[in-house]
């Protein structure tokens, strides 16, 4: 009987759709499904355990009074609620097309004698299961560890009281995560309904990229945002943020568990005073929680309603493989392309590298996702740098503020360094192999040109208004020019050890990446602040020409090293591991 239940069309299709979520080579195209599951599972356990212990260890390290814990823990609760919400929303954003029935699913499944309703229900079940799994995975360990460490010092709290805290933390954080997941679905489906399938196929990649940048930046800025909630007046920007609404639910359900604990007779006068101040702070805030909780309930209801209605409405007809003619790539840049081809890109292989890199980095899902994540990281670092050094017009500008520029383009270039290692379409490499004239250097020059045009220049332009405001137009232009020179040197530096054909060679992840990543991260931040100091000195009485000269010398040295390497090592397409060679995917 049980075996029969596992073989119903609904169950089979649900399992199929669940497996589709794992058909994602954003991590590595080499990883198979079980490897990927193991990596994701291990990552979920280790990261959430590490974060919950590190965020909550302070409650064990010192003696805390109930009033202090009640007030201070508001920041941590906000952090957990927002973390779960953003991570789950990010998962939904990265899955994008797999969240609804795509034309390929319909083409395969429609000819089978399975009712369309079963296909729709199976997809919906798979989407719901993915959301539930992520929401639980992100919040499982924090729901055990955080409440336990929170009341570690309070002997008066019963086991039942602790279990109650565990259950409330789990329920509210999972609900908050589900809210984030549903919000992405609601946004995607509503936009698709409003603009129609043709326009949606055009804007969908940009919507996904923008979502990832916004969510990724929010995630990185979270520790700074979740600070001083008890001391704020309750009407700041956080009151409009969904995690705050769920904090209201949390406190309505569990607020009195800690705040009303009996105080110890052995409190010192200082502890008692601190407890009294914090208890008063918490009491002031407490009156706002029911209102926030009501807002959470209303928003959750609306969000769920919008997500379900738009999802079901869009899914009422299975998509066809070719109902919507694909939009043609825009021709408005044709004149600019002609100018670039005739003036800047005079070599055919350079033109090939330039145009291919431009197309691959924005149109290929994996590459676009990686760049969106890099942009999110850069944006978040820039905001952190900016938050403590916001300039006044015409006032003194700190080196910290100038670091906004290298942090932003630097993060994009690191993302670019990663994407060129990932093949754009492994099976299409044969075209490259046949047409390749071993002019790797010229091809890579074109690829670098694409990085300058599509990543560095937009990053510099994005921050230019800020520096025009802070430095004035003339110095802002000098700053941008130095930034451009610095970015070109950085691009040369990060690519000087790369001796393969970008976007084509099999990606074999570096074995020691996990160990080296923190070192690279540190070097990047130190490098960006060093460069910002250099710019600061140049702009405040030093020599801009001197900076450009130093960068030019660095560039020449890197070019000489690269030229020597190019003579030693030629491009090699056939680098696939044995598993790829067996499948004949490497040729």
């Amino acid at each position: 009987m049980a075996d029969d239940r596992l073989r119903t069309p609904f169950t089979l299709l649900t399992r199929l759709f669940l497996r589709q979520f794992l058909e994602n080579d954003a991590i590595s195209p080499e990883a198979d499904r079980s490897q990927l599951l193991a990596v994701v599972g291990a990552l979920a356990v280790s990261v959430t355990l590490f974060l919950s212990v590190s965020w909550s260890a302070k409650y064990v390290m010192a003696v805390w009074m109930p009033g202090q814990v009640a007030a201070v823990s508001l920041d941590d609760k906000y952090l957990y609620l927002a973390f779960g919400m953003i991570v789950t929303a990010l998962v939904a954003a990265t899955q994008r097309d797999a969240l609804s029935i795509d034309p390929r699913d319909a083409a395969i499944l429609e000819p089978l004698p399975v009712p369309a309703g079963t296909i729709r229900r199976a997809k919906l079940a798979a989407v719901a299961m993915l959301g539930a799994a992520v929401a639980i995975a992100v919040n499982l360990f924090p729901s055990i560890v955080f409440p336990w460490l929170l009341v570690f010092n309070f002997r008066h709290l019963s086991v039942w009281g602790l279990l109650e805290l565990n259950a409330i933390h789990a329920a509210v954080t999972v609900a908050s995560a589900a809210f984030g997941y549903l919000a992405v679905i609601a946004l995607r489906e509503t936009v698709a309904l409003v603009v129609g399938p043709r326009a949606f196929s055009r804007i969908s990649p940009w919507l996904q990229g923008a979502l990832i940048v916004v969510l990724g930046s929010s995630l990185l800025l979270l520790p700074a945002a979740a600070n001083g909630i008890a001391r704020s007046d309750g009407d700041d920007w956080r009151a409009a943020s969904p995690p705050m609404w769920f904090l209201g639910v949390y406190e309505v359900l569990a607020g009195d568990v800690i705040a009303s604990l009996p105080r110890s007779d052995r409190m010192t006068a200082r502890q008692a005073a601190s407890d009294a101040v914090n208890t008063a702070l918490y009491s002031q805030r407490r009156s706002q929680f029911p209102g926030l909780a009501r807002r959470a309930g209303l928003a959750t209801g609306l969000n769920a309603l919008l997500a379900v209605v738009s999802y079901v409405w869009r899914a009422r007809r299975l998509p066809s493989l070719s109902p919507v003619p694909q939009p043609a790539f825009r021709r408005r840049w044709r004149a600019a392309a002609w100018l670039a081809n005739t003036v800047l890109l005079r070599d055919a292989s350079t033109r090939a590298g330039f145009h291919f890199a431009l197309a691959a980095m924005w149109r290929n899902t994996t590459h676009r996702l990686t760049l969106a994540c890099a942009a999110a990281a850069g944006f978040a670092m820039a905001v952190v740098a900016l938050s403590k050094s916001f300039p006044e017009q015409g006032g003194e500008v700190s080196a910290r503020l100038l670091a906004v520029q290298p942090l932003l383009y630097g993060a994009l270039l690191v993302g670019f360094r990663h994407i060129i290692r990932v093949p754009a379409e492994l099976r299409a490499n044969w075209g490259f192999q046949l047409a390749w004239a071993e002019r790797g250097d010229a091809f890579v020059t074109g690829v670098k040109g694409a990085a300058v045009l599509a990543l560095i220049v937009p990053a510099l332009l994005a921050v230019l208004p800020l520096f025009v405001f802070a430095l004035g137009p003339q110095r802002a232009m000098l700053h941008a020019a130095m930034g451009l020179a610095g970015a070109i040197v950085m691009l040369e530096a990060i690519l000087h050890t790369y001796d393969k054909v970008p976007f084509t060679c099999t990606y074999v992840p570096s074995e020691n990446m996990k160990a080296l990543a923190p070192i690279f991260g540190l070097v990047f931040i130190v490098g960006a602040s060093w460069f910002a100091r250099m710019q600061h000195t140049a702009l405040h009485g030093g020599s801009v020409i001197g900076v450009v000269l130093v960068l030019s010398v660095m560039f020449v040295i890197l070019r000489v090293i690269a030229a020597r390497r190019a003579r030693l090592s030629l491009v090699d397409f056939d680098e696939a591991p044995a598993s790829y060679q067996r499948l004949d995917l490497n040729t």
Partner: protein
Amino acid sequence: MRDLHAHRLSKYFSGVRVVKDVDFTLRPGEVIGYLGPNGSGKTTTARMIAGLLEPSSGFVEYGGRPIHDDLVGFRRELGYIPEEPYLYPFLSGTEYLQLVGRLREIPETLLTMKIERFLDLFGLRAAADQSIASYSKGMRQKIVISAALLHDPSVVIFDEPETGLDVSTTLMLRHLVRTLAARGKAILYSSHILEVVERVCDKVIVIHRGEVVADDSIARLRALMSSTSLEGVFSQLVIREDPEALARELADLSAMAI
């Protein structure tokens, strides 16, 4: 224009022999049909000749030199149309042809003109700026054929090029093969469509289970096998089972009660 010589080519995958001792010479202006049933080793041979796959033993010579001595130089002379038209789905047809043409260092003005003409002649003008992801298999195949002919190759390998093509394009392809041969190109035409091979090829190599079982002109093969058609020759050389009996068995199997 030079000769292409496949010299005792063999290929093993994980110890399993796929091609064994294939040996033939392809001369300028000649069209050799490479025939065989599914899984007989046609594509593997074609890929070895194109230099995309290294033979386990044997070698390919072009103009008296092993192609692996100067693979890039050989590929400048080669046009290859694979059976599966794998392309970059995020590029448009025009962009893909531009990529290939630029990698082959064709001057920009000539390249632009050739691409426009190829797209026009293949009826792809309307879809030229759409992503290849939206192309049908036949449209992709037309792009692959255009890419293979952009640089005026001396040797052209067609590996089952008719897959997905409509009737008029298939007819055009037959004429194209003959026209290219008349202009001195050496052509290897791998297929299992006997009628096409019979019409366009001067000579036929029949491969079965990785081994060459016949290598001669179509007329001589017909005479040798006392058959009036290439289909008859092929049946005698390759088809071991009785097709009618096999078809009956398949129909019986399908009719078995669920």
